[in-house]
């Protein structure tokens, strides 16, 4: 009786698993192809000489692949290397400040007792609901009228800390045992020493997630940089790539060589640190 039951159960399981597995894998593979196809098409178009991009049927596999578009990109879009340098300067500077400022204040909000702490924290947190577009007008006015146009600082300064980063670091540091800090103080650490030698090393997972997301966010940022970086040599990659569209309207090979080079660092970065990205999303680190 018992053996029969097991038998029946085993059979239905085997049947149902084949019944489910084929459509399941099919659905997963199809959705993956649909989702990744635009990324594939980006690189295919970049490698296809422009005269071959405008033909029917298109080459699904780049049979005429060459680096010709990239050569033309660097000779014709003469500020491309400036854009890349600007993007790196802005993104790295912002990430360094971001991590430092957000970790310091996250620690203070999590562990330090000071007058007005909770009021301040809720005040900061309440602005999360306000879309950043509300601040555009006054900031744009200041940039326009105080000679900050085309100055990288106009993009860097507003990005040196974020409410989200403060919140993330606070949530993480709150979970660290307070005994460790006390032990540090007893062993003669200064307040700064407690932060630098105990809190910062223990917060590495959260700092890593925050750094990754800050980097991606500002590397891809468009709206504000496009408003304040007007002259071509001062622009960033997203702003520059968008401008390639107007400058080289139908030269898709050239536009796509520029776009693919701008996308490549983030793709490599993602493939290398994929685990931390996905872990970071789970910490609640990014929309997108």
């Amino acid at each position: 009786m018992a053996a029969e039951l097991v038998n029946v159960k085993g059979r239905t399981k085997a049947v149902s698993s084949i019944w489910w597995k084929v459509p399941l894998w099919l659905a997963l593979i199809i959705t993956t192809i649909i989702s990744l196809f635009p990324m594939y098409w980006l690189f295919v178009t970049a490698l296809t000489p422009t005269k071959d991009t405008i033909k029917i049927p298109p080459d699904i596999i780049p049979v005429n692949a060459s680096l010709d578009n990239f050569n033309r990109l660097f000779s014709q879009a003469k500020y491309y290397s400036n854009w890349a340098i600007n993007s790196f300067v802005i993104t790295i500077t912002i990430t360094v400040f971001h991590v430092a400022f957000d970790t310091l204040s996250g620690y203070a909000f999590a562990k330090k007792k000071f007058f007005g702490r909770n009021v301040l924290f809720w005040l900061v947190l309440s602005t999360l609901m306000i879309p950043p577009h509300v601040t555009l007008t006054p900031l744009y006015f200041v940039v326009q009228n105080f000679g900050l146009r085309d100055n990288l600082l106009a993009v860097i300064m507003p990005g040196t800390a974020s409410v989200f980063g403060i919140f993330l670091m606070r949530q993480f540091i709150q979970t660290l045992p307070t005994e460790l800090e006390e032990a540090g103080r007893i062993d003669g650490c200064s307040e700064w020493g407690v932060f630098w030698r105990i809190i910062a090393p223990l917060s590495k997972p959260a700092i890593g997630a925050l750094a990754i997301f800050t980097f991606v966010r500002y590397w891809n940022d468009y709206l504000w940089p496009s408003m304040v970086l007007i002259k071509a040599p001062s622009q960033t990659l997203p702003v520059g790539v968008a401008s390639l569209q107007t400058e080289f309207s139908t030269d898709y090979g050239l536009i796509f060589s520029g776009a693919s080079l701008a996308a490549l660092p983030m793709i490599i970065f993602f493939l290398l640190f994929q685990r931390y990205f996905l872990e970071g999303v789970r910490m609640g680190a990014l929309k997108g």
Partner: protein
Amino acid sequence: MAQFDVGKIPVRQVSTGQRIVLFFRKNSWGYAFVLPSMLTFAIFTFFPVIWSFIISFQDFRPRGGTTWNGFDNYVKAFTTQNNVFVTALKNTAYYAILTVTANILIALILASLIQPLNKYAQTFFRAAYYLPAVTSAVIIAVIWRWMFNTQWGFLNYLLSLFGADAVRWLSDPDIALNSIVLSTVFTAPATGVVLFSAAMGSVPKDLYEAAELEGAGPVRKWWSITLPLIKSTTLYVVVLYTIASFEVFEKVYVMVPSGVGDSTQTIVTQIYQMLYSNLNYGVASAQAIVLFLIIATISVFQFKFLRSDVEY
């Protein structure tokens, strides 16, 4: 007994000066640690938000001569250029309803589909769905603009294989906004998949076993156990996607830079043009405040609607 009377213990008087010193000794490190980020926050968020609110009630002149004008900017925000902002509001709402619904459903389904797989396959698919999300919205828009090209675009080539006529994806005012929606729907909802699959992974296994004993099939288990148990994640993801869709900008602005008539205007493209092209600070601020009010109202509503249930 009398010697223990608390009231008679002499209390040393503390002077105001000493009190200030004590206050700082107690609080100074906390203040020092929050100071840098609070300065950034005050200068670039808190102060501009208040200033923007003030500007929205002013006839703002950058070179001096600013005057108050009550609700004029708010009236103008809606009526200027043949009510284009009203169209933009409708377009944005249309975009938001379609993309949020589709994204949530697709994310739920994809997360459920990868759930029975082994750890490595799960990681692979999550990463595959996440990859487009690390690419700039500008670049994604550049790609889709090319795929939507009427003459040489990939989509019309696909359609031609089935004998269909070419579609003017981005130049027909009746289609353009739908094309933008399509490009969003066809990009896997990366954050949603990752968050849902994390939430589904933490549902206790014995609940499923108990349901199996009572004869529940996979769909029944999904509906009666998985969905109710991940409700707080669903709430979070819905709010996240709703806010993002109301702030849609890059995709639209890069795919159709000058718009297809008014049919592709959204709230943020309007704010951008009002500020960047027209230098109309007052109306731009008013429109940004309207965006804030919409997002705040919807978020509050979503929290009320999706939260009120039993906690598990």
